[in-house]
């Protein structure tokens, strides 16, 4: 069954993803950390689907679809930013800062 250890692993991976988002300034690495968090949530769904039935697997399916859409649009935005600033460092992107 391995429910408790799976939830613990999911918690650790999610925390590592949050740490990455807060620590890094590279926009692409930031996106990868978001993917890491989505993976941690998927692990929770799969672990609990052992008890609650196949709805958890369907949710994992939807999370993967949203992750794919988010990665495609987000990376297109990063390419657009790179054309303007010649950099993907979030420290340089401060147009909305007053």
């Amino acid at each position, binding site marked *: 069954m391995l429910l408790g*250890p799976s939830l613990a692993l999911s918690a650790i991976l999610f925390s590592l993803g949050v740490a990455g988002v807060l620590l890094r300034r590279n926009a692409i690495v930031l996106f990868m950390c978001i993917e890491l968090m989505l993976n941690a949530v998927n692990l929770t769904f799969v672990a609990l*689907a052992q008890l609650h039935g196949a709805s958890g697997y369907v949710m994992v399916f939807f999370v993967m679809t949203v992750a794919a859409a988010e990665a495609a649009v987000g990376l297109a935005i990063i390419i657009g930013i*790179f054309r303007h600033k010649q950099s993907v460092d979030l420290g340089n992107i401060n147009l909305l800062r007053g």
Partner: protein
Amino acid sequence: MTEVVFYIFAAAAVLSATLCILQKSPMASALWLVSTMFSLAAIYVLLNAQFIAAIQVLVYAGAIMVLFLFVIMLLNLGHAESDLRGPSSVAATLVIVGLLSIELLALTHYSPRRLASELSQWPTYTDPATAFVAGQITQQEGAAHGVVMAVAAPLFQVYLIPFEITSILLLAAIVGAVVLAKRNV
């Protein structure tokens, strides 16, 4: 035996994720993230979700990470200087992540038995086998008709409308990506 394999892959996943967020080069980060995803796929197999494990390798490690690698190579970011934030940000991150992991690790105490007794009307002992019938049915369905059908049946029956909406989301993402990445809109 299953537990030993689980802990090996769990350690591999945590190690790869740590290296992923600490590597200077985005390319190395991406490859360590692929390693994390492969470890997670192995864990999905241990949790009786073979179809999800295959999708994880195909879609995540295959498609999404290749997209990331393409963008890293396209923008020529292979050898960047360190982009870690300053010491005050690191301290704040440690505090936030510490609190968050304490909260989330409280979930570790959940066992099927405790979940069953909390979900049942009476706070007494309830057998997980009677409280979680849906999981048992899914297991039996997987054993009888294959693991793909156990996922496909709810996807195309109960969740048909969300599944169709997903296709609209993907269409919007494709159009959005093309419009955003085009040079002259």
